[in-house]
Structure formats: C-alpha cells, structure tokens
C-alpha cells in the first residue's frame, strides 16, 4: 500500500468530512439566543381590550412573555400548556403575557373566545416589540425573572416539563 497517497487522501478528506458533519449536524434554523442573560427590552402596549400594559409594572415578579399568532399551529399546541401554567403559577405571582405576532386582532379574539386565556393579550403595532426581542418565528417564549433579566428563551412550543422547571427556578 502506498502510505503517502493514503496520508494525502486523509489530509484532504478528513477536514472536509468533519466540516460537512458539523454543518449537517445542526439545525440551520437554530440561532443563538442573543438576549438570554440580559435585561428584557421594555415595552408598553395595549391589550386587545384597550387596556394599557407595561412590562415595567410587572417588575419584581417573574414574567412569561409569549409571542404567538392564530395562523401558527404549534402556538395552538402550546396553548393548553400555557393555560395550565398560568392557572398553577399565576397565584404564585408569575405574570403571563401574550404578544400577537403578525396577526389580525379579530382572529385572535375569536380564537381566545374558543380556547380561553388567563393572561393579557397585547397588540404589537409595527411588530416593534417582536423585533426588540429578536423574534424570528412563532411561538417564542421569554422567561423574565424578578430582576427583569431574560433567563430563558424557548423557540417553538414550550413543553410542560420545560415550563415547570423554568418557573420553579425563577420563583
């Protein structure tokens, strides 16, 4: 066997295969959570019923901010998890807030009338709050601790174990 050819082949193929393995081994849609560990961007919005809501008013309590829309099926799958969590942790002082992402308020109202909700649902004119939170698809959920710091961001529907674990850590 010609060892020199073998070594030359390995020098070319091993880095190439490693590069491809690294590239195909991760989901290209997953991106770094740029805001984790940093202060949550402030926002003052109105609920779909016209009531004002400011994130600053909730400071001192853990807050769960969920970006969602009615055209997003995973958001509907996630809805019961949020309902259960709001029911269980709302009395313990956790604030739940939903922010509408690129959707029509009438559709949101109709959906919430059917599915119910235990939290204020906020309109986000111009999508500024979604941009401030770096939302790149829904659902995305931000867990904000008592000091106003984002401790976790979940892209995609939040599972019950993740919801419970994160909230228990924040309380």
């Amino acid at each position, binding site marked *: 066997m010609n060892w020199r050819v073998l070594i*030359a082949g390995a020098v070319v193929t091993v880095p190439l295969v490693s590069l491809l393995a690294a590239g195909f081994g991760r989901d290209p849609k997953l*991106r*770094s959570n*740029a*805001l984790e560990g940093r202060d949550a*961007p*402030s*926002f*003052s*919005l*109105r609920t779909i019923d016209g009531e*004002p809501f400011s994130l600053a008013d909730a400071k001192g309590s853990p807050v769960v901010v969920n970006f969602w829309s009615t055209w997003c099926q995973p958001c509907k799958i996630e809805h019961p998890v949020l309902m259960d969590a709001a029911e269980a942790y709302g009395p313990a002082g956790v604030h739940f807030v939903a922010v509408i992402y*690129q959707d029509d308020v009438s559709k949101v109202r109709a959906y919430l009338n059917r599915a119910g909700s235990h939290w204020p649902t906020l309109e986000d*004119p*111009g*999508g*500024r*709050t*979604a*941009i*401030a*939170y*770096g*939302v*790149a*698809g829904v659902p995305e959920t931000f867990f904000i601790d008592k000091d106003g710091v984002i401790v976790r961001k979940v892209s995609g529907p939040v599972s019950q174990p993740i919801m419970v674990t994160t909230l228990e850590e924040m309380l």
Partner: protein
Amino acid sequence: MRSLLLALALCAATPAVAAGDDADIVEELANAQLPDPPMEDPPEEATAVARTERLQKALRCPVCQGLSVADSPADAARAMGNRIEELVLQGYTEDQITEYFVDRYGAWVELEPPKEEHQTLFIAPFVGLSLGVLVLLVWARRREDGEPEAVPSYSPDPALSQYRDRILAELDEEAL
C-alpha cells in the same frame, strides 16, 4: 423638528396605531427598547432613503432562508424594514441600527458577516489552495529530479527451463 419627522415616519409606517389617536403610546413605542440616543440629526430625505435601502439590503429577513429584508415579501420583513426606516429618520446611524439588530438577533442577521471579525474564514480557502499548489509543485519537482524507478529484472529459474523449452517447442509445432 425631530418629533415632527418622527410623527410623520410613524404615520407612514403604522397607520393602524396612528389612527388610534394614542399619541402617548406611539411616542413610547417609537423610543422604547433603544439603549442609546441617535448619534446624528435626522437626515435629509435623499440620505434617509439611501441609508434605509442599504440597511434593508444588508440585513436578513428573520423568517426567510437567505433573503434580505428588501427582497422578502414576508410580513416580518416588512415590519423590520419599517423599523429600519423609522430609526434612520430619527437620526440613528447605520452602525447603530446594525448593532441594534445584531444585538437582538445575533450576528446571523447580517447577510455578510463583518470581515474584520471573521478574517480566518475569508483567508482559509486561499491559504488551503496555496498549500495545495505548493505540495503539487514540490511533488512534481521531486518526480522530475529523482531517479527513474527501477524495473524489476527478470531472471528465469533454471529449474523450470525444461518446462519452458517444452512449451515453446509445442507452440512451434502448432504454428506449423
């Protein structure tokens, strides 16, 4: 003057909000979430348009695959484009606006990553190519200068000569 321009920009970008007469909310929304004030005065219209277009082409649509904000028809891209326009009209510089989006979405949001931060990535292919050419040249030079490879010499085994002679004789007979 600045607030007038801001109000005009917001009217253009978000008619739904402006129509709601919630001036306080509009003002708060426009200024919320921005860590630093604008570094410049609001630019003139032509400058603002050019800056907005450059930024919309340089930043990535957050819900698309490889499309800029300018090229994408998605609602999210439109919202981002409007936000860029608002910030430009307020006097935020291109660097400030880019930093604002990178801060939220990560470096991924820039379609072309800044070269100074990823120099290795840009240089690596040229280094690899140069090394490959160098190896080939060295190999070719050695091949030219080196001794020709020795051809193994054939020396018939004397013990087998009788068989060889017999085969050759038979072949001769068949040929006749």
